[in-house]
């Protein structure tokens, strides 16, 4: 069974934000919710690098551990998903997540949070695969259609890779060997420490 992971090659990312746009469009993500973002460090200085980041679908996912209503689950492929029918919008997963992945639409008084939304690795949610309900709540279920996440599919420089962990790390390893350098598999240490 494949273990799905994202890998962002920071030596290739050109901060075009196509992944962000693709994600927003594919899933019709509401205003103010950003499932994926591109962060540029050392902006305008030598050593500038950009990284596209979203939910990393951690092995020992902190969001799952702290959720008071236990609304998260992990698929056989390692994708961390959640049930919006259970989510109470408490915000704990956002406090726990190392990557800032959980997002909340504004709802109610005092800046109260609505149901959490985050990257699904284009794998939908607990509703029936490909159903209208699933699309409305979680976005497109591309994995069920045999496709990989759109952000990586649309990446112009193929900096962002998504798919089976062994495959994407092989691709990355080949690149590093060919070009003679590599910044490392960003975020993997934080996300997947326990299953290496």
């Amino acid at each position: 069974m494949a273990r799905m992971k994202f890998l962002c090659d920071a030596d290739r990312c050109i901060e075009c934000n196509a992944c962000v746009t693709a994600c927003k469009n594919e899933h019709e993500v509401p205003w103010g919710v950003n499932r994926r973002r591109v962060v540029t460090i050392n902006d305008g200085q030598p050593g500038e690098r950009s990284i596209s980041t979203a939910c990393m679908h951690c092995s020992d996912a902190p969001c799952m551990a702290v959720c008071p209503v236990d609304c998260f689950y992990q698929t056989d492929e390692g994708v961390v998903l959640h049930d919006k029918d259970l989510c109470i919008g408490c915000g704990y997963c956002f406090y726990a997540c190392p990557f800032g992945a959980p997002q909340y639409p504004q709802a109610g008084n005092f800046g109260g949070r609505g149901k959490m939304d985050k990257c699904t690795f284009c794998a939908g949610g607990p509703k029936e695969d490909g159903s209208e309900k699933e699309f409305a709540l979680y976005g497109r279920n591309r994995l069920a259609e045999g496709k990989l996440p759109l952000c990586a599919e649309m990446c112009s420089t193929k900096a962002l890779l998504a798919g089976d962990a062994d495959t994407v790390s092989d691709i990355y390893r080949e690149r590093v060997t060919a070009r003679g350098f590599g910044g490392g598999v960003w975020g993997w240490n934080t996300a997947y420490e326990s299953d290496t």
Partner: protein
Amino acid sequence: MSQLLRSFLAAVGLIAALAAAGYVAVIVGAATVIGQSETGIEESARSDGWRGVRSGTAGRVSIPDPQAGILIQSEGEIWRSIRNGPVTAAGAWSMFVMLILLAVFYAWRGRIPLAGKPTRREVVRFNGIERFAHWMTAASFIVLALSGLNLLYGRYLFIPVVGKEAFAVITEAGKFLHNFVAFPFMAGLILMFALWVRHNVPTRVDLQWLRLGGGLLSDRHHPAAERFNAGQKAIFWIVILGGVSVSLSGVALLMPFAFPIFGKTFVFLNLFGFGLPDMLTPMQEMQLAQVWHAVVSLGLIVVMFAHIYIGTIGMEGAFQAMGSGKVDAAWAEQHHSLWAASAEESVTDDDSVPVAAREGQG
């Protein structure tokens, strides 16, 4: 026998002191660890490339939220381990230990009886406004405590019983209740403070009361007390200070990222050489607010177990003081002798029979 009493009292005191020390240790530890997470992260050979990124250095991002520029916030893992670890465990243990202590105390001491015969003369102990303030705070506190405990323990206790769907409905209702009932709680705190602060200034009488164990251990020597005895004064200050603290951290949680309080608090504490990190990110503020809110609330819940015990089954005649607001003159004399003397003047009757005549009948 008195040896036994003394050792029992010592044990209770020791446990209380240990629990208090534990709470302080947890929060100081949490503050230090969350604020200086860099030192807590082990660097491994398979590095992420940039150490700065892993310790929370922010980059530039096109989203109009500077927080989104932080690629990795490692404090999340620390917050998780503190919340799911020591806070959950210490909270459960301290509640359990307090209940056991109260059960043991009840089994040994029984219900503290009214000394002598009731006089059937009633003295007003708490007037309408005072009882309103108490019960508004008490009712809100119970709602807040139950909905709060549910967030911490419900996942383990109730999901196996009622299932995830029903539990989510209950917990979401609890969240809304918690958010809104917080306001009567805060109003009650302010009211109680205004009404009772002048009766709760510690005096020399309290030392004597404490030295005699508050008359909790035996019926023979009941120490003198003013309107509030030292134990009640302690409860008052725990409720006021703990309540204010839990309210401030609660407001910080209610309005996410809009009400940072810990950075400022730590700047103040550092004047006394605490050396706490005072440059906190908005996320660290929220994490500390959650830990602090949980720890102080659990502390208050444990203290309230004892308060509710002594106010209900623990002592004859105690409940009516806050129930009907009136106590028997004998009870007032027994438990609050100094106050009773001054309250004699405001003796009330439930009918028109003169006091002297009824005393004659009694």
